[in-house]
């Protein structure tokens, strides 16, 4: 490749520049919004595709470096593109391609100045995320990281006239900032040697920390990146910010930005820190499990479609963290094959999540435009008005529910395989923990299916509830392209696991020292360890099911007939039935709420039996908010109220401070 003389890094750098330029153009072209929407966004999308391609190219390459003559005097900005970064670049490019195309249609109707600003922030956001992946020293990383946070904050608060959105944005930025502080601290712990030069990642790799300090660094990193990823108990911003943001932005945030946090954890744990501890893995595993269950439980009881998706993102982040935890454990105990397996599962799942979650989020965008509603309780039957969106989102729904032959299933399959192959770890506690963990994973997966059936069924199926728009229109052409791309991605990732895993091996080889390979040497069967042990072939699967369907259909037609009459729904012959008899969103989630009651903070008012206009109102809140965040707030306020006693307004008092300070100092020197 060097014959070309161009390194992957150069291409990515160029694209980042291009993004920045596009953003500025957007700002300049405020007065011609149609150009912004129909030219700049597609261009940005193409750039994204270029990033993905470059990532694919860089996977096979050696890491390429660059040092920009910028940044701090003794710490210029270091860039580095290694397979890990390359993989996440693929994720970034692939997902954002679809989202950008979608945005081209989605923001069409927006007014000029807002759109210009949004265009700038949007591309700044993309560039920031790409730079996070490329950063190779602490300063560069922090700059990119916070640029990402800031631009996404402004994107979230695009519609800042709504007080709730302002609040959400503030909460988001605050937690992001706290997380950034933790990350900075962890870099500080990991610094290699003296002087500011010790903050390059290269120096950190060289610095072999004692166990205690590397554990501190890991914990800080877990906290910091967890704050961005929405790890319990730092998740509170996520279900607020995602619904607040415009849908493509939610797609980027949930699909890609959360993954940068995963990237950060991987980078710190397996690259910057030279040795890991087994209990890190256990911690990550436990946190991940709790997060996953929590997320999916709350997703099940949501009425707002974007909140629901946000909570499901929390769940998926939990799964990813479980994967990371397993990887750490295996890696520490030298079972590199298993480490590779679980790491592959993790990376695969983050890729899948990037695709189907972005797909679902932009889909909600189309729905939002069509109905002007976010509350599922007022939707229903949209499949008849917006078939495109319905079909494409069905793909997303099936994928996220982890159903074969779509992509969600593959990564869950791999993860479960990792669990199944786990026994024989020297530590008996972990041996005990792992099956339980597997059970929890299975539970989470099943619940996810529940949630998604609710999501899809309430929105698209049944009869229209409530007084939504009369004739919701289907998505426009740009939006369709975006949706198509992402759903195609879901299908492709589901059908070609062998190829994907082969690519992922390049990453796992770098991180845990070996790749997975494919025992069944063939494109047809995915066999992570041994064809005897486990194998899966989505293609055969799909073909078989489709074949059977076709045969059956033809046979039925041939041997009998295809006659069909339309009539009113039967429904056990109940006479007066209307749309209000269907389950509402709350109704569908009610069993979950009932089973997991202690986890929610429920307030609900039920109508009395004789109510002429019965109205049911219920909300389930997050206990953590009341148990953790409000107390912290109160404590800080108490401290500051004590502090403010100092400023009492009496000059004598102030003079006394001076006097006292003087005397004390004099007395003690």
């Amino acid at each position, binding site marked *: 490749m060097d014959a070309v003389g161009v390194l992957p890094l150069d291409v990515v750098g160029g694209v980042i520049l291009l993004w920045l330029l596009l953003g500025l153009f957007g700002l300049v072209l405020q007065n011609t919004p149609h150009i912004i929407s129909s030219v700049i966004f597609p261009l940005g999308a193409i750039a994204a595709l270029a990033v993905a391609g470059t990532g694919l190219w860089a996977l096979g390459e050696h890491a390429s470096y660059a040092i920009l003559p910028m940044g701090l005097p003794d710490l210029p900005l270091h860039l580095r593109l290694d397979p890990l970064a390359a993989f996440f670049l693929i994720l970034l490019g692939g997902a954002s391609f679809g989202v950008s195309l979608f945005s081209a249609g989605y923001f069409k109707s927006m007014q000029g100045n807002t759109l210009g600003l949004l265009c700038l922030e949007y591309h700044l956001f993309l560039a920031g995320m790409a730079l996070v992946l490329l950063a190779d020293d602490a300063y560069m990383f922090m700059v990119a990281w916070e640029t990402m946070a800031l631009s996404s904050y402004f994107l979230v608060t695009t519609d800042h006239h709504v007080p709730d959105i302002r609040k959400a944005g503030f909460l988001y930025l605050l937690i992001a900032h706290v997380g950034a502080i933790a990350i900075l601290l962890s870099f500080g712990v990991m610094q290699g040697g003296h002087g500011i030069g010790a903050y390059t990642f290269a120096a950190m790799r060289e610095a072999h920390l004692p166990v205690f300090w590397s554990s501190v660094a890991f914990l800080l990193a877990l906290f910091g990146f967890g704050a961005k990823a929405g790890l319990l108990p730092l998740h509170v911003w996520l279900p607020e910010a995602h619904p607040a943001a415009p849908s493509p932005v939610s797609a980027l945030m949930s699909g890609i930005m959360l993954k940068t946090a995963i990237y950060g954890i991987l980078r710190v744990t397996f690259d910057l820190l030279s040795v890991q501890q087994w209990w890190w893995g256990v911690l990550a595993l436990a946190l991940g499990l709790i997060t996953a269950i929590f997320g999916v439980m709350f997703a099940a009881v949501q009425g707002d479609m974007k909140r629901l998706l946000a909570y499901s993102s929390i769940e998926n982040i939990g799964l990813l963290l479980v994967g990371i935890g397993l990887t750490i454990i295996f890696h520490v105990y030298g079972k590199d094959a298993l480490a590779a397996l679980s790491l592959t599962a993790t990376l695969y799942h983050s890729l899948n999540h990037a695709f189907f979650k972005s797909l679902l989020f932009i889909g909600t965008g189309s729905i939002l435009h069509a109905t002007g509603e976010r509350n599922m309780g007022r939707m229903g039957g949209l499949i008849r008005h917006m078939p495109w969106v319905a079909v494409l989102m069905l793909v997303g729904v099936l994928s996220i529910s982890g159903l074969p032959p779509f992509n969600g299933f593959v990564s869950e399959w791999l993860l479960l395989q990792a669990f199944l192959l786990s026994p024989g770890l020297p530590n008996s506690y972990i041996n005990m923990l792992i099956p339980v963990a597997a059970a929890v994973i299975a539970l989470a997966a099943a619940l996810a299916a529940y949630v998604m059936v609710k999501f899809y069924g309430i929105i698209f199926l049944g009869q229209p509830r409530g007084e939504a728009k009369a004739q919701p229109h289907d998505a426009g052409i740009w939006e369709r392209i975006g949706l198509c791309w992402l759903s195609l991605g879901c299908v492709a990732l589901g059908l070609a696991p062998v190829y994907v895993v082969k690519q992922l091996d390049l990453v796992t080889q770098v991180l845990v020292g070996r790749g997975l390979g494919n025992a069944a040497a063939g494109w047809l069967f995915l066999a992570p360890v041994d064809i005897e042990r486990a194998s899966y072939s989505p293609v055969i699967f799909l073909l*078989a099911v489709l074949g059977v369907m076709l045969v059956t259909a033809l046979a039925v037609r041939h041997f009998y007939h295809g006659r069909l009459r339309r009539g009113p729904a*039967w429904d056990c012959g109940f006479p007066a039935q209307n749309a209000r008899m269907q389950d509402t969103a709350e109704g569908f989630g009610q069993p979950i709420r009932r089973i997991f009651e202690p986890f929610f903070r429920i307030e609900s008012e039920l109508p009395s039996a004789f109510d002429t206009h019965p109205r049911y109102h219920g909300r389930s809140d997050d206990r953590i908010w009341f148990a953790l965040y409000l107390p912290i707030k109160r404590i800080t306020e108490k401290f500051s109220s004590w502090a403010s006693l100092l400023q009492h307004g009496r000059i004598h008092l102030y003079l006394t401070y001076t006097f006292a300070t003087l005397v004390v100092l004099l007395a003690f020197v």
Partner: protein
Amino acid sequence: MMAMKQTLGILFQLCQSLLVVALAPLLTGWVNQCRAWLQNRSGAGLLQPYRTLRKLFHKDAVLAYNASPLFRTTPYILFGCMWLAAAIIPIIAIDLPFSPAADVIALVGVFALARVFISLAAMDIGTAFGSLGARREMLVSFLAEPALLMVFFTSSLISHSTQLPHIVETFTHHEFVLYPSLAFAGLAFVIVLLAENARIPVDNPSTHLELTMIHEAMILEYSARHLALVEWASSLKLLAYISIGIALFVPYGIAEVDNWHALPLAITALLVKLALAGAGLAVLETFLAKMRIFRAPEFLGTAFLLAVLGLLIHFLLGA
């Protein structure tokens, strides 16, 4: 020799696929017949399901005005999934060419896929019962599915494989060992089987009482060929489950591919086992009572717990 094996494999595969499709309604009929006998009824005869199917296929399909394509495709998807499932489970022979396409986890996936589609279809028309049924189905399944998965885990931990054929092989060909963990797993599996196939005590296949039904509530809007396919699919599902149970817990008599002569023996063994299982099912259904829908989660929770317990015991005793 290799080619010979291959052709044989294909042959067995075909033979099993056709056999299961043909056999499934019979099994259902047999179960109903046993129940009738146990309840001192004469019963409708073993072949009743076939008659029902034939009748349904002849009828004109009636579709609700607002039924979407999803609603119409679902029966076929259902049928396809179930058939696939039943086809790759080693019922009469061990290593069928298709079986590597989906191991046990994928099998669970297949069932999940079918379930999701039927629930969606149930919500499609937008009737009160449809969504009620869908909700209950999902409620039951989100506990049953992990339990099933745990059962599979236990057995595959013992046999170091998630491939049913290899599990079967291990159990048949190694010397007989008592696996306490498998006992728990078996118990859990029975519960799951009851729940997943809409059997008492979780559901009642032979009622249209809105307060109790789950499966029936979902397929209320189906008629004619669609209904026929759905019914057929559910009997296939029953067959598949029972034969999974057989494969996991009493795998004896399942044929290798490479000898002809095992085939008749295998089929007879299969028929006997199915008959026994069906009878057992009928007995269970007769002696258990339908429980309130909100007791179902507890019931399945026990199954889940049992399965996990089995897993832990396996880790504890290494058996």
